[in-house]
Structures are given as C-alpha cells and as structure tokens.
C-alpha cells in the first residue's frame, strides 16, 4: 500500500466516533498527566492497559499513544508557571519559561509552547509517514561509538546553557557527572556510591533531582521574599505578539528536526533534544544575553523538540518493532496482549494499526491544540493566586508527584535534599541546568565509551575509523575549541582590565 493510500486507509478507520472518543480520552489524560509534575504517562497507561482488553488493538494503541504525546503538551505548564518541571523533557522550559511568567508573559510562553508542540508533533508525523523505514535504518547505524560521539557533541553545547560564569558552569558539570555515576555500573553491574540504599541502586532519580533543584529551591527562595504572588510584573498579554511569532519560527522548525532525529535513535527520547535545541538557539540568537531572562526562543525550541522527539520515538517502534524507551515498551506490551506481533512486518501484517496510529496522531495533535489553547487563560489565572495559598498546593504536587514515579518515599527525601542544595547553589550564583544535563548525559557517555572499547578490544581507533562517530567527534572538538577560545579571550580581557585598574 503506498503512502497516501495508507494514510487514507488510516484516516478512514480513525474517523469513527468510538475511535475518536478513545483518541480524545487518551490525549486528555495525557495532557492532565503531563501538567501534573512527576506523574508521567506510565502510571496512567498501565491503569488503562486492562481497559483495552475489549477494544481493537488499533484503538488501544491510539489511546495509549495519545497519552504519551499528549503528556508532552502539558509538561511545559508547570515549568512555565511555577518553575517545576513536569517531567525530564520540560526541565529546559523552566529556564526561560518561568522568567517569562514572572514578567507577566506566561500567556505568550504557554501559547508558543502549545503551537510549537503542535507544529513539531505534526511535522514529525509527516516525517514518520514518509521516511519511517529508511530513517529507522539510519538510526540503527548508531552504535556505541556513535552514541559516545553524539554525547560529546551534546556536552560541548552545554556550556551555552550557562548564563554567567563559565568556570562555575564547568564545576556544576563535573558535579553532575559525578552524581550520574551513582548506582549500578552499566557495564559490570558494580554498585557505585549507593551506601546500602536500594533506592540509589538505580542512580539518583532524575525527576526527584529536577523537581528539587528547580521547584523546591524556587519555593525556598521565595519564602524569604515578602512577595504576594509569583508575578513580578503585571500580566501583559495572553497571546503571543507578532514579534514573538517572528522570533519563534526558526527555533520551532529547528526544534522539530532535532527532536525527531534524537527521538528515533534507539535509547533515544524527548529529553536530550530539549537541551540541544536550547543550546543551539542560544548560539544562533542575535541576543544571547536574553537567554535565561525570558527569551521566547528558549521556550519555543525545546517545547517543539520534546513533542517531535516523542513522535520520533515511534519510528523504531512502528518500523522495526523496537521500542526505544520504557513508555513505548508499554505499547509493545499492549500489542502482545492483543496477540499482535510488533516487528518489521507490522506495516504489512497489521496496516490498520500502523496507519491507524499515524492517522490518529494528526487528529490527536489537532485535538491537543484545541484543548490546550483555551486552557491558557485558566493557567494564567493561577498565577494570580496569592502565594501563601499557592505554595502549599505546589508543595503537595511536588511531594505526590515525586512519590508517584516509583512509589518510593526515599525519592521524596532526595528531592528535598536537592531542593536545599539547589537553593544554596543558586544563592551563590551557580547554575543548575548544566548540572542536570551532565547527570543525564554522563552515564550514557560512559556506558557507550566503555562498550566501544569492548567492541574494539581496547583500541581507540574505533572512534575515528567509523564515519558517523568521526564526524560527530570532529564537530564536538570544534565546538569545544571555539568555546574554549572565547573563554580564553574573555579571561584575557579581564586580566587586561585588572592590570589597567592597577595603574
């Protein structure tokens, strides 16, 4: 069946009242789950899994998929409103989104976020439709050396996340890398730095850390201020201005490409492209000093990237039957329950599932846009709630959200500890974003580095003899050099100023 025939076929099966209903249920629950911090799609999907027994496999997948990409729409809400990342993929949105909210520009932030998510999601579905199979094969060509190189490239971009002192950012990066080593060593299984705590065996959880470093620390900082509400300025607009649109279109398009590409890599997801998008946008922007203070590009790019990423994750899933992350693994489970074997033959043997899901994503994204835009007015009003009432509510959502990840109260303790750490660090001018991304990238880098050496029997040549990894490493090297160079020039300038002062 050719592509347009398939799409029509899919649309025909989707445009039924009951399928549309399940799609709507899925995306609505997804949005809700995404808005609430900590609670992710996994919980809702597993509750609804038994409910899918009575319906056709295609409809079941449509609903579950809706929960997944719907969550990417809602995740930015708490990031922007109260600096609490809804999930890992929304951490970056906190950086500029929250600053925009404080300036009364939460409406445009939420609006661009929703539109960007829509564009990113829809463009990715188009790409999914046309190039799923060939792209899946490209993704397969990424093995341990390529992943290591890709992580190096991503790391070289991290320095752009920092607003202030690069030296401080580097310290934070190393701290983050060290925190990333906690847990079972991926290659030998040796438990590192876990001090007897079974919770730490899996490493320091990303969600507790993110919620603590960003959300709790923000609350701690605000207790001291006699502020009546989160807002520092009056609410200015509800809708994005023309200027906002103009500045966002580039980041949105770039974010779509980045997100989709990273999402389709095995082991890929929606988290990494958000950081990469932010760094890229900061690098390309004509006003990089605005980043971290409320630059709309810092919201547009990452929010688009995480939606494109979640859709990109369907590439290996639909084309090869390989789920690239634990959430899609649930979809695989759902297929298994219904007796459908997910594999490279899915497109031939079960076209109603393949095309049904793709068609439903178009519909789902439209539903999400219609759902989320009017909600913006509601969300903005939350900012007007007096802080002394808002704060307990925020804390409750943090506590429960953190617990919800693994039903483990120890993770709440981790969140609190990192809340304190985040508070102390922020007070002294350190940045938290480099810390978190280093925590995420570090273990991936290490595992792939060591696996590459196992594959090559200890030879380092494997990194340069393979074309993809060699190219990526070269690019990473260039970026390191260029940022090192500019840091050197900045330091030289400072030294000259100091010497000049002494005259």
């Amino acid at each position, binding site marked *: 069946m050719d592509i347009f025939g398939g799409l029509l076929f899919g649309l025909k099966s989707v445009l039924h009242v009951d399928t549309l209903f399940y799609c709507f249920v899925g995306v609505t629950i997804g949005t809700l789950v995404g808005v609430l911090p900590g609670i992710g799609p*996994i*919980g809702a*999907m*597993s509750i609804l*899994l*038994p409910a899918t027994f009575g319906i056709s496999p295609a409809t079941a997948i449509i609903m579950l998929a809706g929960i997944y990409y719907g969550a990417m729409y809602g995740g930015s809400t708490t990031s922007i409103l109260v600096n609490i990342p809804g999930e890992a993929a929304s951490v970056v949105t906190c950086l500029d989104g929250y600053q925009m909210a404080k300036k009364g520009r939460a409406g445009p932030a939420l609006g661009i976020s929703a539109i960007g998510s829509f564009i990113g999601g829809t463009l990715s579905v188009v790409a999914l439709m046309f190039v799923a199979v060939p792209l899946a094969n490209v*993704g*397969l*060509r*990424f*093995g*341990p050396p390529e992943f290591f190189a890709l992580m190096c490239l991503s790391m070289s971009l991290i320095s752009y996340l920092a607003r202030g002192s690069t030296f401080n950012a580097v310290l934070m990066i190393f701290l983050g890398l060290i925190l990333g080593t906690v847990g*079972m060593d*991926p*290659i*030998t*299984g*040796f*438990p590192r730095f*876990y001090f*007897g705590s*079974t*919770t730490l*065996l*899996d490493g320091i959880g990303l969600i507790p850390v993110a919620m603590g470093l960003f959300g709790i620390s923000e609350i701690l900082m605000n207790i001291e201020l006699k502020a009546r509400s989160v807002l520092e300025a009056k609410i200015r607009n509800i809708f994005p201005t023309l200027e906002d649109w103009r500045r966002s279109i580039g980041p949105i398009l770039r974010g779509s490409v980045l997100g989709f590409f990273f999402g389709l890599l*095995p*082991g890929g997801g929606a988290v990494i492209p958000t950081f990469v998008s932010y760094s890229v946008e900061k690098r390309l922007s004509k006003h990089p000093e605005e980043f971290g203070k409320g630059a709309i590009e810092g919201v547009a790019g990452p929010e688009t990237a995480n939606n494109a990423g979640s859709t990109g994750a369907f590439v*290996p899933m639909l084309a*090869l*039957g*390989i*789920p*690239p992350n*634990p*959430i899609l*693994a*649930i*979809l*695989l*489970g*759902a297929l*298994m*329950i219904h*007796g459908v*074997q*997910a*594999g*490279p*033959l899915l497109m031939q043997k079960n076209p109603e599932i393949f095309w049904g899901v793709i068609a439903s994503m178009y519909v789902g994204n439209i539903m999400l846009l219609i759902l989320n835009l009017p909600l913006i007015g509601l969300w903005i009003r939350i900012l007007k709630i007096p802080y002394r009432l808002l704060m307990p509510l925020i804390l409750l959502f943090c506590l429960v959200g953190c617990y919800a990840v*693994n*039903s*483990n109260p120890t993770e709440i303790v981790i969140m609190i500890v990192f809340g304190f750490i985040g508070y102390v660090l922020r007070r002294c001018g350190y940045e938290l974003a480099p810390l978190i991304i280093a925590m995420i990238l570090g273990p991936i880098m290490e*595992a792939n580095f060591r*696996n590459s050496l*196992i*594959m090559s*029997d200890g030879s380092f040549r494997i990194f340069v003899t393979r074309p993809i990894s060699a190219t990526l490493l070269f690019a990473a090297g260039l970026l390191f050099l260029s940022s090192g160079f500019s840091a050197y020039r900045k330091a030289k300038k400072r030294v000259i100023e100091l010497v000049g002062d002494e005259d």
Partner: protein
Amino acid sequence: MDRRKILFFIVLILLPFAFQGFSAEKFPSKPVTIVVPFPPGGVSGITAMTWGKYMEKHLGVPVVVDYKPGGGTVIGTQYVANAAPDGYVLLNAGDIFTSILVGTAPYKLEDLTIVAQVTLNGNVLAVRSDAPWKNFQEFVDYARKNPGVKYAHPGIGTWVFFRTESLNRQAKLGMVNVPMKGDAEAVSALLGGHVPVAAGSTYVYKAQQEAGKVKTLLSFDKAEGYGLDPTIPDIESFFKGSVYDIVCSIYLYAPAKTPKERIEILRNAIEKATKEPGFAEDMKKIGHRVAYMPGEKVMREVLPKKIEIVKGIMKDTGMIK
C-alpha cells in the same frame, strides 16, 4: 460539646480500621496481590496479569498486580520479603539470588519461599540474516577458532547474560559480552551491524526472524515450545548433556513465614491454572513456555546447581570476590 465532637470524629476515623481487624478463617477471603518488580507494561507485568486471571477461578478472589520497580528486582522483592506472611502478597520474579550474592539485596534467600515454578522464559542466540554462519554448528566452530566474538545482551544483571555466559564457558566458545540496556538496545546493536551476535528474549527475535532480518541459531531450550521452527537446535539436543542450561524460570514466591496450608492452597491454584487450555496459549504469545514444578522440588533439585554455575560466572567477571 467540643469533647463529644472530637470523640465522634475519632470513632469515625477509626471505624474502617476496626473492620479490617476481622481476620478471616477461610483463606483466601480478600484479594491477593502479585507484586511485579518491574515497571508496568513489560512482559513480567503481562505474565503476572495472566497468572492472576487464571488463578482467580481457583482461588475465588480477585488477583491484582502491583508494580514495584527498582534496583534490578531488589525493591519489589524486598517488599514481598518484608510483607506480612499471610499469603495475600506474592511475588512474580525469576531467580533472585543474584542480587543477594552481589550484596545489593537487603534480604536473604531464606526470606522467601518458592510456591512454584510456573513458566520458562525463552531465550535465543541470533545473528543477522546475512551472517556467514548458516547454522549453530558453523558458528560454534568459528567461535572456537576465533576467540573474542562479541555478543550483545540486555545487561549484566539479566538472566539472559548469565545463561549465555554459562553456555559460553561450558562450551568454550570464547565470546566476549557487550552489555546493552535491555533487549531493545541489544537487537538494535545486532541489526545495525555493531555486533555479530546477540542473545535475548525469544519473542523479540522471533518477530525479527519472521521479517527476515535475523537468523535464530540457537534456542536455549526446546524451540517448538516457543513456537519457533523446530529445526532450530537447543542446548540439550546439540551438546548432548555436556552443557547444562540454566533455564530462565519465572516463579511465584511468597514470604517464607507464610503458613504451609496457605502456600499449598496457592500452589494448587497455580497448578490448576497452568493446566487450563488457554493458559499455555497466552503464555506462548509472550514468549513463555509453561513448565510447572512445585516449589519444594525446585528448591531441592534445580536451585543449587543454578547457584553454583552463576556464582562461578560472577566470580570470573569480578562481580563478587
């Protein structure tokens, strides 16, 4: 006035608690929980759900699944090991002694008792369809002549790894393991040409084989039990006893102090469940083979040999001293 109100509220709050105190003479009289030490949606969850579905008929109460992921399988296992030994909390897991040996588990083997071995998870050794080896014999010959063949597997703590390493050492294949994160990464590494060979769950590679992307060279235990092509060799038939295969068992556990009569009731229920016609079919769909064995037999005959082999592997790889 105030005091009475307070008293009233206290009674109100304590009421549901009081009702729970009614201990039932008949077992079971309330829902039974099967704990799954993995995140929801995986094969383990589906296994537990299926077991529960069939056990309900023979127990007369609902059977629910509770997910407690983390630490490998440590968190969920710890939860059951510490749970009230009243027969209402059970565990669906494979062999748990690996974490105990490494020292990351805060419980001992004696804290849990195996009610029964219910199913076996199928594992295979696969290569790409364009690989130079047409069958397992050719591969074995090649591997022995060229030590250092890399194989991908889902991770160091997984049973697949131990099973493949056990084969590797006993059959002297000289392979080197490349740990991946789960079956998904392992099969991707194989398909992408980064490793020549991969070991993993049957149902994953079966799907790829049907699409013509991989060749299954070996099924660790009987191929046809998993719906695979019966000409695919298994360890038993290929090595004729010189290699002992440590099967990937999935057991039903209960806290060790659970009264024997209750364990017997549960064991009976799961035994009857496995004999139901739909059960084997449902298990086959997810790559499992029904292989019921009462817990006592497992602990006497199968477990010691498994522990011995795995301990050896762990010592060699440096996982334990």
